[in-house]
């Protein structure tokens, strides 16, 4: 297993609050909301400030109803569906996120494609899971604060994913943290879990704010760990061109 990355070791933490990030974050915002990019589009910087875009595949894992689809929408700044509708296949969502590297001040756009697949569909159709696993770079493990079994099942899931590949960024997110009246998972247990597995654990829930601060910690953590994983893969040489970069305009 890879060593845990200290937050802020490789990228500038809370960069979205810094003045110099504004011109980059403006590219992912439209009329105060997050911009939705079609597959043929991407944030475009003026020629003198052009940056590279790095492409990653992130799978969202968790049992039906924990909030996978809602989290994907939250991270992308899309409307969160209010009623629970089972996701009956694979649905991917693209999130662009600018990041500033600490060591040289270089700015990169991370293009995180979130893969979400309904648990029922995974069970009913054999071809979906392999498709989700194909060249996956990171997994978001979800549990719900209102459902203890989803928390207890985490280690199970993690083992399942670690068996198939060890080059994988893993991040845990506890959803429905806003429903504290129905909280079924104690903070103490979460801390213990975090120490045992040495993995970042985030809390999510509540109204989606249009501010970036809501999602920045999770996205920064993913970006930083993915960057680190690439560095390790490339033998500490830093991420060069050899990895899949975007070919679209």
């Amino acid at each position: 297993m890879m060593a845990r990355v200290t937050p802020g070791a490789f990228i500038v933490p809370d960069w979205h609050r810094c003045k110099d990030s504004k011109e980059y974050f403006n590219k992912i915002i439209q009329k105060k909301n997050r911009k939705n990019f079609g597959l043929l589009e991407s944030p475009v910087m003026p020629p003198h400030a052009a940056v590279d875009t790095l492409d990653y595949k992130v799978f969202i894992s968790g049992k039906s109803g924990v909030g996978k689809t809602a989290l994907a929408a939250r991270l992308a700044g899309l409307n969160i569906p209010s009623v629970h509708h089972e996701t009956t296949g694979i649905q991917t969502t693209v999130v662009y996120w600018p990041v500033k590297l600490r060591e040289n001040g270089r700015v990169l756009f991370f293009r995180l494609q979130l893969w979400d697949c309904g648990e029922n569909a995974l069970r009913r159709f054999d071809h979906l899971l392999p498709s989700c696993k194909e060249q996956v770079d990171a997994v978001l493990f979800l549990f719900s604060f209102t459902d203890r079994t989803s928390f207890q099942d985490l280690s199970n899931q993690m083992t399942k994913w670690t068996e198939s590949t060890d080059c994988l960024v893993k991040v845990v997110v506890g959803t429905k943290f806003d429903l504290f009246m129905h909280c079924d998972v104690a903070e103490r247990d979460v801390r213990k879990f975090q120490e045992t597995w040495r993995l970042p654990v985030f809390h999510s829930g509540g109204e989606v704010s249009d501010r970036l601060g809501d999602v920045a910690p999770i996205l920064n953590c993913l970006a930083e760990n993915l960057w680190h994983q690439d560095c390790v893969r490339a033998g500490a040489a830093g991420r060069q061109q050899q990895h899949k970069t975007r070919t679209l305009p």
Partner: protein
Amino acid sequence: MLQDGSTQLLCLTASSGVPLFTRGASKQLPFSVIGSLNGVHMFGGGQGALLSSCETEGGGKVVWKVFHDSVMLIAVSGGGSSGACSGAEMSRLQRLLENVWSCMVLVLGQDELVNLRNIERLKRDLRSCFCLIDQLLEEKHQGVLGNLTHCADSLVPPNPTPLQEALDGFAQAADSEFGCLFVHGRIVVATEKWWRLAPQEVVLLCALVRTLSASGSASCDYPVFLPQGSPTVAHRLLHFQLLPGADVCVLCGPTPSLQKAETELVGRLWSPLIETLRSCLAVGERCLPGSVPLRPDVLALLLINRETRRSVSCVQISSHHPLSDSSLSKSRCWELLELFYIFSISRYFTQDETLCGSPEESTQSSHTEDFLHGFSHQPQQCYLVTEDCKCYGFQTQQHQFFLLMLPSVPTFALRTVATQTLTDIISATAF
């Protein structure tokens, strides 16, 4: 039984009346009522009578239908408020049940619905259909009439040829014969084979793509069964959002994987068309290119091509209209257009059911027939004058055309305006 205007849907096992799910209407019917609705149908069955619909004193309506001796669907409507005549409301409910059943087959496949082995599991699996079913139950799909007309809502682009070529190339590269390009949830171009799917399947797939598109997702890999073409073997519906509002999908077999299709095909084959796609998006909800002139006193229109089973519809509200002090909102216009369509086809014209290919549907046109038996001929034109607007509808061998105009248009001119408008559209677009 229910609030005016709301519809509730019940699904039970046909043999034992075990409730599988209910959808719609904020206030659910009490369990005892559900039991009676099932009971009275069973009782009829025991006496050799098939109960298919009834009307309550308060104008509420109930429609029953059993599918493949395994699942019973019941639609209950509070009736009344929409102003539709009762026969039209009945056909709406019957159509709804057909559509709901097709949704269930589309998502779960026929086998699982016909061989009821594990009821609990089926109940859980049925939840996967709710997204589509809820969309059917939702009254307001502004600008989308396919659920009603069983024709594919279309958008006519200014320049279809490069899009058709790109789509054909894309489908071929994805090992698929079935491809379709959507803008604003309406079909712009499709491969030849796509048009050979049953009209109802096309409408359902459009509804599915609209929900996928509305969710803002970038791409999808959805297993789908085709209710008529392939009810027991699933295909994969690959869906890609090219630009917000512009979506392409293909029906595939086991290959290519979603990832491969997306990274290797989408950008390469569609990037050159980005400006053409943008010009389609600019057509907007008008659904007809700017080259088609529409008189300013036209409020709304629906044009159906009876051979291709496609339709275009639009509402034209110019708020600063010199002639109009009409306060009709856009959504009211859509509603009136829908009602005029239902009125016309349930009284005068026929809906081209025979082309739908489903024998089960032939029963539902009975209301039309009852009424038509009173005529010695088949009406070809009809008009309706209301306080809000004037309506004119007519059919030819090839088309059905429904037009809503401002009340200021003289009634004697309706026919001329309608004929001229249709001629203008057809000569500009060859629709």
